[in-house]
């Protein structure tokens, strides 16, 4: 028998970096700077626990949106990566 369950915020866990939803204008600028298309970006699934957490803040996040991830990097301190949301 377990004790009371509580809801956890996965974003607080050490292993999970900061996830942010970027706006469509920012998306355009990003793709322009990188000189590439959305399909070339690394992906993240719609039902990823971090995305589900973001949805509680921003509302539903459709596939095709881009997430900005700020990682704590062992080599450079701070590192910014992007992932494009895909279907489950």
């Amino acid at each position, binding site marked *: 028998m377990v004790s009371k369950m509580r809801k956890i915020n996965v974003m607080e866990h050490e292993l999970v970096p900061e996830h942010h939803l970027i706006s469509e204008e920012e998306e355009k600028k990003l793709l322009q700077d*990188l000189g590439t298309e959305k399909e*070339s970006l690394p992906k993240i699934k719609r039902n990823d626990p971090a995305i589900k957490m973001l949805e509680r803040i921003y509302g539903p996040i459709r596939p095709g949106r881009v997430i900005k991830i700020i990682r704590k990097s062992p080599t*450079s301190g701070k590192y*910014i*990566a992007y992932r494009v949301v895909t279907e489950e």
Partner: protein
Amino acid sequence: MMGDEIKKRINSLNFALLSPDEIRKMSAVKVTTADTYDEDGFPLDRGLMDLHMGVIEPGLRCKTCNGKVDECPGHFGHIELAMPVIHVGFVKEIKDILDATCNSCGRIKMKDEELEVYRPILEKTILNGEETLESTSIVNRIIDEAAQRTVCPHCGAEQYKITLDKPTTFRENGRKLSAKEIRERFERIPDKDLIFLGINPNSARPEWMILTVLPVPPVNVRPTITLETGERSEDDLTHKLVDIIRINQRLRDSKDSGAPQLIIEDLWELLQYHITTYFDNQTSGLPPARHRSGRPLKTLVQRLKGKEGRFRSNLSGKRVNFSARTVISPEPFLSINEVGVPEEAARELTVPIPVTPFNIEKLREIVRRGPNPKGEKYLPGANYVIKQNEKGMRQRILIMEKNAEEIANKLEPGWIVERQLMDGDVVLFNRQPSLHRMSMMAHRVRVMKHRTFRFNLAVCPPYNADFDGDEMNLHVLQSEEAKAEARILMAVQEHIRSPRFGGPIIGGVHDHITGMFMLTYMNPKFTKEETLHILSYVKYDKLPDPVIENGKEYYRGKDIFSLILPKDLNIEYKSKICDGTGCKECVFEKCPYDAYVMIKEGRLITGTIDEKSIGAFKGILLDKISRDYPPDVAAQFIDNFTRLAVGVISFRGFTTGIDDTDIPEETKIQVDLILNDAIEATKTYIDAYQRGILQPSPGKSPEETLEDNIMRVLSDAQKKAGEIASKHLGLENPSVIMARSGARASMLNLSQVAANIGQQAVRGRRINRGYLGRTLPHFRKGDLGAYAHGYVRSSYKKGLTPLEYFFHAMGGREGLVDTAVRTSRSGYMQRRLINALEDLKVTDNDGIVIDTTDNIIQFKYGEDGIDPTRSKGGKPVDFDSIFQKVLGERYLSAKRGGK
């Protein structure tokens, strides 16, 4: 001019299916006879060895292209099949299509509106010859959906269930579907439906999957072999083709002569079997076709598959010319960039040199020498000369003593001289298994007498080479481009640091460390004579300042060492002989054990040079020099200290014997006491356990706790005994020098020789396996004592008792088996990693890492854009060095104070 060929690049390879028309068009001859050669041994017309398909015998010419054996590439032939046959490789696709299309009108069994939704996506991928996850899943869904419809939505015809009897028989509602019927159905499928089935109409039609014409491979793909006995043996493929033609002929005859249906069907099935086995002799559900001897035939698929198949063994890896392999041996006086090549090898391996007006005289001289120049000293000659003859073809002329002079005179710019290897040539040197890029590096040739490859010992670690019989390979680079790339990118000195961990991988080993230790420990004195002798091995500017004692001049070891250091070097650190246990507080440069290394402006002030300074993986001094100075400075440093070390050690002499491990009687008694106590403690634990009063550790059973305690007690005893013995093993002792300086062995090894070996373990536990309830019949059942479970009390010097020896062997065996299995498992993992990651590269756009389809894997390599090779143990920047440079002594003393 020679070499005017413009080098083109193959841009892409397109795959498609062959249609029967194409097969007939490309064929050089229609093969009808199953026989190969006639009585004279001449290839039969219209037979399987017809000369239209190519030549294998020298002297004959190909009837299609008129080429000789080495010119003709071979040409395909064809066989007209009496009846269509299913291609076994496409069975799955055939089934899918049969399931999904209508049996009368040929369209897919789905309504147009349902299909059109998918058209744009499928057109984008399939019509372009691409296959994505999305497109495959759509196609699969369509096929699954369509397969379920029992009535065609277009023509209304009733559909029946199609089953597959492995491997090639299709049944509709139990009735066998012949290949002919399937082909007819496929012919009815319109082009526009094909993309929904996953087929690109530009490259394939489904009916082509049912063969009506069989292409016959050229003769040189399946050559006849003549055995020693003179008999001719046909290739496996030819044998199979013979079977196919025979049955095909019989089938045709039976059909023409109106034989009963049953016989025709039988023959048809037999033909199907032969053709199936021709493609893949390992088809599941089918007995493999065998030779008379019983050996299964090797047909087309078997030729391509697996480690020995075409892909892995002839395409991804090949045997090459201009290579050599022999045993390796050490040569301390070669630079790390050089490799010693035997004369015999140098005379066979050649480098192509184009003749120009600038080198023509030199080359003339070389050619004149011929392929076997005489004389004590090795001089390169030439083996071949290549020129363009009147017809515009390349001609390779062998140089022999009698025509050497003549050819030398005829030399013109535009010709190519294949000259023998000489000093300074760039070659690739490699040891297998080639686990990292340092397993193959570029060296400069030094042609030497005798028959081994030689190189500087400091280069052993990257190759993982030792001299117990290892062989290594050599490749001679043939083009200027290759030579330039090798010299600049692959040279040994460019690889002093390893990308694996950002530290040096080429460095001092074994005697190098011993030598340096002896040179610098406690700053020994050398007479002028001795100093000059030692220094004769290296290049130096001038003698250091001597020290005068009693009127005689002496030179100190540290000063001698300083001669090979770069002049502006500043660094300090603790050496290996500092074991950190003796001192309460470090006194840095005042260390009485000479264990703190301090180098200022290129002079070694205090400290001993050992493994921590110049050792291959851990050398801090090496690390700094290889990072702060250009590669040739580092290479020079390594060359110098290896030579210096050899000089010192061969001058001073160094030997070892069993007396190195002698310890005085009193010490032996002390060791005995310690071990006795340990055994007693063991007995106490066992007793407690047997009486049930042993306190179990948290989370563990009493048995586990007992084992833990015993192992701990015995291990502690081993350590203590070792420490006591070590007290009597001082640094005058060669074995101790080697252990302390890091050259070879450790104090653990020495204590095992001198004092006590310790507990043997298998699988992390004490020896347990053996007889029922006991390890050996020499013990009672249930004996839990130390000796009964692999405790070896003796030292190596004392010698092991038979029982101890047995247990020791058990422990040792585990290690050997582990190593053996490990190599294959780790090799497989490496192969998969390489295969998955090989295409990744860093772009020139801000350090982004991409794969072949331009997917961004990393936005910046390693998240900071730093090359691990150039890092300092993973860190991009050497802060200590920078602060030292800017602040000077202030930084160093502050650091020492704060340390």
